[in-house]
């Protein structure tokens, strides 16, 4: 039985994959005597491909929901469509975030020195293909394959600066952590498959022995009831293992230790990719598994997620306090932000799943815009001052007033203070979910954490306007692509500040 494929639905990842192939071909076959530099010859098509994929996502969002790779009519059980790839609102929103951030990452990497250009953009586009496929996946196998397609190129991207010891170490750490987490996920998936007999998320949701089914079993015989009890235990274990594997990738405590070293060792555009694109896609995977497949077990995973969220934001913020290295600080801050993103899921037992996911998604949208903006400015400054210390930002307002103001805006947004209204609205949405869901202790932890966060974001922002240290070069930092990247991030964050309903109602 052959499946029919809806090529319109899979257009975004398809465009990215074909562009990746083209970029590699151009890099391989470009003669030395061609009039253009290799850098331009590969980076411009890569940027065009990402923009084309973004256009495809927008067009898909305007039309009907599409799905493809479904189980053929004749083989369906209980009428479940069991599609492996669905281009619905949720997946298109995440694809949009990923691709918009990708435009900025490509602009940032245009000035990257000392890396092989063709490989750089090829790997970047491969990772993006995975990141766009991931939120659209609706079965566990596609989910894992997409997650690996996102992860594998990033190891190589991290290590592409070949003679940099820190980059090599970072790549090795990322590789080991990622492989271990994938192994744990796969083990969990095998347990879930063993109990439910399927890998499609809708099939798992239908086949799960929920409490209702246990009662039905118990009506039969004592043995049947005992078996049902045991099976529930196996599903719980499988769920926890799958969750553990996925939260490794989004650096949630207790699986966060890799983040600072890897962010610091990797080239800055790759750190931005890990902190925004990889994180958004990882969260999409967590949302899909928890809400599409295991909605029936919300009473089990919601308290667990609430505790993880509280731990994540606290550990991330406390460790960020001590950082003096710009990228390291952003790494810990992005660990802390993961905690805020997870927090609404902690009340999933009390609230409707769709509102909970909408709150988290809104936070991710705003977080992506402001965080990628901060990374753009860090890229600009790190090129002139490779030490990348917070004190290197002293006097930035004197030499680059625009860059300093933009950085101050992003930092204020990350802290969640006016005039950075985007960050404030994001926090309010998350707070509202937690408070309405009657999780008072989590709301208190979040409030305390927001105050801790204020300190280090403000300490950094204050440095921008402090007088420069003597001896620091006072040259103006200029780079056209980075300037465009900063402008894109400022505009998007600004739009979210003035019209937050764009982010907040995106899933409705």
């Amino acid at each position: 039985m052959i499946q029919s494929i809806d090529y319109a639905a899979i257009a975004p990842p398809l465009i990215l994959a074909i562009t990746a192939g083209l970029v590699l071909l151009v890099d391989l076959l470009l003669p030395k005597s061609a009039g253009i530099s290799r850098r331009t010859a590969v980076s411009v098509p890569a940027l065009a491909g990402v923009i084309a994929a973004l256009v495809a996502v927008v067009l898909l969002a305007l039309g009907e929901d599409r799905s493809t790779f479904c189980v053929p009519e004749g083989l369906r059980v209980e009428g479940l469509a069991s599609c492996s790839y669905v281009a619905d609102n949720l997946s298109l929103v995440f694809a949009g975030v990923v691709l918009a951030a990708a435009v900025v990452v490509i602009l940032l990497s245009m000035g990257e020195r000392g890396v092989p250009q063709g490989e750089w953009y090829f790997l970047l586009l491969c990772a993006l293909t995975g990141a766009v496929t991931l939120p659209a996946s609706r079965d566990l196998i596609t989910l894992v394959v997409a997650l690996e397609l996102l992860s594998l190129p990033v190891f190589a991207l991290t290590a592409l600066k070949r003679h940099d010891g820190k980059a090599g170490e970072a790549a090795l750490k990322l590789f080991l952590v990622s492989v271990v987490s994938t192994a744990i996920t796969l083990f969990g998936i095998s347990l879930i498959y063993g109990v439910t007999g399927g890998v499609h998320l809708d099939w798992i949701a239908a086949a799960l022995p929920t409490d209702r089914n246990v009662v039905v079993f118990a009506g039969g015989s004592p043995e049947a009831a005992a078996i049902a009890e045991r099976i529930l235990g196996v599903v719980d274990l499988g769920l926890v293992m799958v969750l553990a594997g996925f939260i490794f990738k989004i650096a949630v405590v207790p699986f966060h230790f890799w983040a600072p070293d890897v962010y610091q060792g990797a080239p800055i555009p790759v750190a931005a990719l890990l902190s925004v694109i990889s994180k958004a896609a990882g969260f999409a995977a967590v949302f899909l598994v928890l809400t599409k497949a295991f909605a029936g077990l919300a009473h089990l995973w919601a308290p667990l997620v609430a505790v993880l969220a509280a731990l994540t934001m606290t550990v991330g913020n406390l460790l960020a306090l001590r950082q003096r290295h710009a990228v390291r600080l952003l790494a810990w801050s992005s660990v802390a932000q993961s905690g805020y993103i997870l927090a609404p899921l902690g009340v999933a037992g009390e609230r409707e799943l769709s509102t909970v996911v909408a709150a988290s998604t809104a936070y991710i949208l705003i977080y992506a815009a402001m965080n990628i903006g901060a990374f753009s400015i860090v890229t600009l400054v790190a090129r002139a001052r490779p030490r990348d210390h917070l004190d290197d930002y002293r006097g930035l307002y004197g030499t680059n007033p625009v860059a300093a103001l933009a950085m101050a805006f992003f930092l204020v947004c990350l802290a969640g203070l006016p005039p950075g209204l985007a960050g404030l609205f994001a926090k309010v949405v998350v707070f509202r979910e937690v408070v309405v869901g009657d999780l008072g202790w989590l709301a208190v932890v979040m409030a305390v954490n927001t105050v801790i966060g204020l300190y280090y974001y403000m300490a950094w922002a204050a440095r921008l306007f402090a007088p420069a240290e003597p001896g620091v070069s006072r040259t103006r930092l200029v780079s056209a692509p980075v300037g465009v990247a900063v402008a894109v991030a400022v505009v998007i964050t600004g739009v979210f500040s003035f019209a937050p309903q764009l982010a907040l109602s995106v899933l409705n």
Partner: protein
Amino acid sequence: MDGYFGSYAVVAVLIVIGVVIYVGALTINRLLSPIRPSAEKLLTYECGVDPVGEGWAQTQVRYYVFTYLYVVFAVDAVFLFPWATVFADPGFGLTTLVEMFVFLGFIALGILYAWRKGVLSWT
């Protein structure tokens, strides 16, 4: 010897028997055989020929690239075999044929890359 964990007892017994046979054979050999060492006899045994060089040998690091290339082809064979058994069946047809060549095209890109980067020449 009954129950779920009882079945593991058989495995444990087998392991014990294996160890006893192995240790026993070596011990009897040690007790019975005459030991009269000479320089010749203490040489590493290498099919009867005198060994050349050290036991610590290095392998050319460049072989790893060929291993990679081999894996590329070994993996696509995994997909080719099941495809080859069904692609001519009713309901499949031209689309199936084209799809496989698209897949092979992507794989071939890897070979093209290796060739252009000079991996295939040994110097």
